[in-house]
């Protein structure tokens, strides 16, 4: 019995990659044992950009491999880190000699495996690790913890670093820009329904009718609080308000707005959410210079959304606007 479009659970990610690469044969190449995806036509002479993590968040990261963004994506099993061997092989495959930036979402397993790969590669490759930790829901005073989770700001980091690499920036500059995006970004998510185990059909948590879970991440875990669902304006307004405060955005501040669907959220709903987010920002005098609305960092089929704000400056804006051609975004 399955409750999703799947053959064997053990082959799920590999088969999906085969399908993806067949669909985008002009753009992507599949590498097997260990498993990773690279651009069909690698860039030459630029700093290379590699990211990855557990699967189930697609189009992140495989959908962002292409000209002006990632050189390789390294997928783990659903919600599990890839191994350092995969990361190592991907780096070895794409380094053109100018070094490699690893973009890593802040989860223990991912940080560990990417860092180990960097450690192991250190003798022969220049590697910089950029850790993304934008999720305010996991901010806690206790030190020594794993820190804030990395969620949808990863898309912004990958886009900005990819554009910087493409224009010829050196390794330190590309990594520095990635860290600049991380510093200036914050995200919060909310779920109207948990995600479904693709094999059993079981929900990762239960909500009563009319309840929402605020502060969810992208692995089907519960959030910070269960609340009664208000209107879209109320729910999104609450998230955006907290982001604005955290980033200390005053009148005239310029932002990139990312309204991200977590999987099952309909485009109509995301558009209503985008409208709501813009209204709050307009009221506070914050200027939405650019926005991206869609399912970019999913949590399987979770019904919900996250909002990410990145405070822009002229350079980040220019890098965001730079041409990109991937399976998930093209402009």
């Amino acid at each position: 019995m399955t409750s999703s479009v799947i053959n064997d659970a053990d082959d799920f990610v590999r088969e999906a990659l085969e399908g993806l690469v067949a669909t985008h044969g002009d753009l992507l190449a599949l590498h097997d044992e260990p498993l990773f995806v690279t651009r069909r036509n690698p860039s030459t002479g630029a700093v290379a950009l590699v990211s990855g993590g557990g699967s189930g968040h697609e189009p992140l990261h495989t959908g962002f491999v292409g000209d002006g963004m990632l050189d390789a994506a390294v997928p783990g099993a659903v919600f599990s880190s890839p191994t350092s061997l995969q990361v190592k092989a991907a780096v070895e495959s794409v380094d053109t000699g100018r070094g490699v930036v690893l973009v890593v979402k802040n989860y223990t397993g991912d940080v560990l495996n990417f860092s180990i790969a960097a450690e192991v590669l250190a003798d022969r490759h220049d590697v910089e690790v950029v850790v993304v930790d934008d999720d305010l829901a996991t901010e806690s005073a206790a030190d020594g913890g794993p820190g804030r989770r990395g969620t949808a700001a990863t898309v912004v980091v990958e886009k900005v670093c990819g554009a910087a690499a493409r224009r010829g920036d050196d390794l330190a500059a590309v990594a520095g820009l990635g860290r600049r995006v991380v510093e200036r970004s914050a995200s919060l998510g909310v779920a109207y329904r948990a995600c479904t185990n693709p094999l059993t059909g079981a929900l990762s948590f239960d909500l009563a009718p009319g309840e929402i879970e605020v502060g969810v991440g992208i692995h089907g875990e519960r959030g910070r609080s269960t609340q009664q669902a208000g209107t879209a304006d109320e729910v999104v307004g609450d998230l955006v308000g907290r982001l604005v405060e955290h980033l200390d955005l005053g009148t005239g501040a310029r932002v990139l707005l990312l309204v991200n669907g977590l999987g099952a959220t309909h485009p109509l709903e995301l558009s209503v959410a985008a409208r709501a987010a813009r209204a709050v920002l307009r009221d506070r005098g914050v200027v939405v210079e650019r926005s991206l609305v869609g399912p970019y960092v999913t949590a399987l089929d979770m019904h919900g959304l996250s909002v990410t704000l990145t405070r822009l400056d002229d350079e980040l804006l220019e890098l965001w606007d730079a041409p990109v051609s991937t399976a998930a975004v093209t402009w």
Partner: protein
Amino acid sequence: MGRARLDRGGDLVSAAALDVTSTRAWLLRFSEHVVADADELTELDRLVGDGDFGWNLSAAVRRARPGLESPAETPGELWSRLSDAFLAAGGTSGPLFGLWFGRLGASEATGWTGHDLADGLSRATEAVTRLGGASVGDCTMVDALVPATQAAADAADADWSDAVAAAAAAARTGAESTAPLVASRGRASYVGERARDVVDPGALAVAWFLEAATDTVR
């Protein structure tokens, strides 16, 4: 010094220099122990973590086995094969042990002295504490790694086999020291008081690992 003993397979194992033969014997001995007693580790992880540790570990050593049995020029090649098998394994322990074995074996020497071993342990443990972020007292494998590394350094002028025996003893003591602790890193940080009086399985595995070396030269 210059002693030669039989390893379990009957090969000569040098107690003075850790060569390919003795390294292979050590690593295979460790593998057998893990496969035989995986349930004990799993049970400990079940009490304080998510109960997959024995499974993670035995999957890794099974994966390593063909590489450990193939010809090698230096001990470093064997360490590197063991490392890769762990790096390909799941959990938190897989990558950390993989890193540890990889750094431990990062030497070109064909026959290791006590100093080579002590240097390797020092490199390896430094990498694990740096990347894993745990300190002694956090109730992880680090509680065994750090005292073992220190003991080997203190005994580095002796034969490798004496150095490893000192390390093994320190690792065992370190592992046992985790029982009264409440974990603050990784797995057991979620279960709090429930983890008291249970030895950390990662630390215990470190003791097993070093004890496997002393077994082969005994």
